């Protein structure tokens, strides 16, 4: 059964230099119980895609298309309905702890607040549940930490507080934006295990630059570039047998593969390249790639690619 059906989503921001097309006609389906990874170049639109789903973007943003959650279009809900959905059914673990946590509230109280928004619990119960949540994300000495302010925690601890808050109300669908960045290897593996456990019968969209994390958690991975999806397949195929030239270059830039960056720079999102958006940087570009915009095609069962070499 489909949990989330994103249809022709287009999210744009007006700026003094023109419209920024951060998400440009994205179609993505997430089934009940499915865990999907979203990867791609910094600035390609991953966070904006996630924020469009939970509708946490500033009012000047224009969003077109449909986002069906269990058949209901999220984009048509009013603020009150949206607030109820957010947290109770859908929750988002935000990318930036420092700007997302309230600097003047103790972290235990912040988590307790999130819990109380959606569960009828007394203050004391909520607080002790908050401490439990901190323990579950492996924060040592959780009781004491709950009484500290965000600036008293290390970077990795704040990251884990964000995760605890995202999981606090037991939602059925979680959007997690870079939840493991800046964690040491051991802590990261613990968090990966926790996320896997916590989402065992749920759906997850995890945005990450860490391919190891994506591989460990996700059934499927979607690759984004300049506002579009370029490739979408099982985690194994994407990481071991990528077809899109961008994704092949991406894998080759891993430190273990010799730290070879993809040549060229990220394209403009105000005036993206004509034809295939990757053509100015593609080593296999043909003449036609400058003019023709490739469609997503299924090259083998469940493996979708947007490249004229496959058309």
């Amino acid at each position, binding site marked *: 059964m489909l949990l989330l059906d994103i249809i022709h989503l287009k999210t744009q921001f007006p700026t003094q230099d023109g419209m920024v097309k951060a998400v440009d006609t994205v179609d993505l389906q997430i089934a009940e119980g499915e865990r999907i990874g979203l990867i791609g170049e910094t600035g390609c639109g991953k966070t904006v895609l996630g924020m469009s789903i939970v509708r946490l973007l500033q009012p000047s943003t224009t969003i077109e298309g449909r986002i069906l959650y269990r058949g209901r279009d999220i984009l048509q809900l009013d603020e009150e309905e949206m607030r109820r959905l957010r947290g109770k059914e859908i929750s988002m673990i935000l990318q930036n702890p420092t700007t997302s946590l309230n600097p003047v509230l103790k972290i235990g109280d912040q988590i307790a607040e999130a819990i109380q928004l959606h569960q009828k619990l007394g203050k004391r119960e909520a607080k002790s549940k908050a401490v439990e949540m901190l323990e579950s994300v492996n924060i040592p000495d959780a009781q004491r930490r709950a009484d500290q302010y965000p600036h008293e*925690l290390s970077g990795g601890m704040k990251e884990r507080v964000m995760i605890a808050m995202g999981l606090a109300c037991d939602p059925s669908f979680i959007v997690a934006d870079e939840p493991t960045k800046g964690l040491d290897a051991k802590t990261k593996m613990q968090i990966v295990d926790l996320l896997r456990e916590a989402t065992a019968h749920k759906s997850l969209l995890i945005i990450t630059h860490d391919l190891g994390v994506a591989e460990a958690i996700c059934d499927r991975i979607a690759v984004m570039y300049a506002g579009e999806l370029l490739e979408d397949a099982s985690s194994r195929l994407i990481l071991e047998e990528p077809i899109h030239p961008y994704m092949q270059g991406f894998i080759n830039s891993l430190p273990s593969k010799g730290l070879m960056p993809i040549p060229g720079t990220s394209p403009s999102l105000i005036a993206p390249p004509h034809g295939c958006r990757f053509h100015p940087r593609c080593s296999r570009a043909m003449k036609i790639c400058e003019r023709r915009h490739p469609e997503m095609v299924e090259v083998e069962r469940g493996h979708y690619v947007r490249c004229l070499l496959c058309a």
Partner: protein
Amino acid sequence: MRLIDVQDLKKHYSSGMINKQYTRAVDGVSFFIDKGETLGLVGESGCGKTTVGRLLLRLIEPTSGKIVFDGVDITGLGRKEMRKMRPRMQMIFQDPESSLNPKMRIGESIAEPFRLGLHGRMGKAEIKERVLELVDIVGLNPEHVNRFPYQLSGGQNQRVVLARILAINPEFIVADEPTASLDVSVQAQILRLIMDLKKDFGLTMLFISHDQEVVRHMSDRIAMMDRGKIKRIESAKRA
């Protein structure tokens, strides 16, 4: 030649009004960094890495200990003398957003060191040219220059921070997880840029990262930290 020499550095925090609790964030560390050398700093989350970095630049005051930078004991410097030292030592913070002024456009942030006359007097046109050059070097697009930090992605802001530091052109950088918010390709691009700076200008660095492979790539020696103490320092070649 030594650029940084740290002796028995400590930073203890106390919290709680009635039941005072102490955190020994940094608990007696000693090490040195030679000119042109990169020292990697690794260890579990919360072991004190960021605190060491902030102490080195005196962004926070140590509880005790001594930090010698280029022959000068900076722990004893007054505010005014420290201000003169600042441009020579800079930090790339773990979270880029908190080190950028949210009310300043990206272009202004990068131009600030030039406008303040850090590299002598420069005209408007020259500054603009330098800013666009830096924007290109760190892989941003001219369309980002007129935006505010909230209008950029996490990784784009991290590159703004780097461009600003390149504009300051310091001798010593504390890089705290400088590539944690970047994708692997942009990470490779930025790491290569940092290695070039080291080769061409003899940049000295304290490089904090959780990525084993990245640390090994970037460092000459690696210091392993655990609960406020440095357990050992070894050559990156065999670490």
